[in-house]
């Protein structure tokens, strides 16, 4: 199962004051807070951890069909030191491990989290929100030879979107995210 999260860094800077007293304590472990505080760029580090937690939350929720919860602090993040443009890490939640891969630019952070370290996936990042569902459906249809007009997105009782073709549920794992100027989908492929 797979999850993703995108953070528009410019919007985050105006929407949230990350130095608000007690805010970081509600979301991040002591260990994570030390990493944020000592980072060269605390804002980016904080939103990276946040995106990792959100992406892992989505993968975890989809995997076990869990009701919604707001428990960011239960998701413990670890990042590997890397010079690559895709930063890998892990997120631990109640004994389960998720593997994350994050792309950081000056404008956004996009994170994908997956229960499997070697899961193949395709993803795309857009600067227009409206396109997102259409783009996912067309990428999916192309990959699996469906007529894109027959593929639909419907939300389940936990408001998780799912793919259907002519009314039939398709068990493919994907995730959508949007924030501010950006949106992104990720689709697990096998």
């Amino acid at each position, binding site marked *: 199962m797979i999850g993703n999260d995108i953070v528009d860094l410019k919007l985050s800077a105006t929407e949230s004051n990350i130095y608000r007293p*007690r*805010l970081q304590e509600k*979301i991040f472990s002591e260990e994570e807070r030390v990493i944020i505080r000592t980072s060269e760029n605390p804002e980016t580090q904080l939103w990276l951890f946040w995106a990792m937690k959100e992406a892992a939350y989505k993968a975890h929720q989809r995997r076990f069909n869990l009701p919604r919860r*707001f428990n960011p602090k239960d998701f413990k993040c670890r990042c590997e030191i890397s010079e690559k443009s895709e930063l890998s890490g892990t997120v631990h939640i109640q004994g389960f491990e998720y593997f994350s891969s994050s792309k950081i630019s000056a404008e956004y952070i996009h994170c994908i989290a997956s229960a499997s370290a070697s899961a193949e996936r395709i993803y795309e990042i857009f600067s227009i929100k409206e396109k997102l569902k259409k783009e996912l459906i067309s990428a999916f249809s192309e990959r699996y030879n469906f007529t894109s007009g027959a593929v639909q997105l419907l939300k389940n009782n936990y408001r998780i979107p799912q793919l259907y073709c002519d009314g039939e549920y398709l068990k493919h794992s994907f995730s959508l995210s949007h*924030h501010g100027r950006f949106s992104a989908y990720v689709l697990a492929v096998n």
Partner: protein
Amino acid sequence: MTEKEIIERLKKIVNPYVQRKEGLENFNKETDFLNDLQINSANLVDVVLDVEDEFDIEIDNDSMDGMLTVGDAKEIIETKLKEK
């Protein structure tokens, strides 16, 4: 404090974070912070902190965990006020 008062104070607290203002028109216990008001999840932490300040209570992580609707928040506030 009556239920009505708590809900009114909650409405004032969430107002700056609401992205879907129509959601405020029928603000009641069923109102969902994320789905109905489209408060972004990072700002949900601000709502929790504002609630703590407004009611002078502490919302632990286990309580925050289930704070997804106005009704959830109202119940947590009532419980914490009783504990004071």
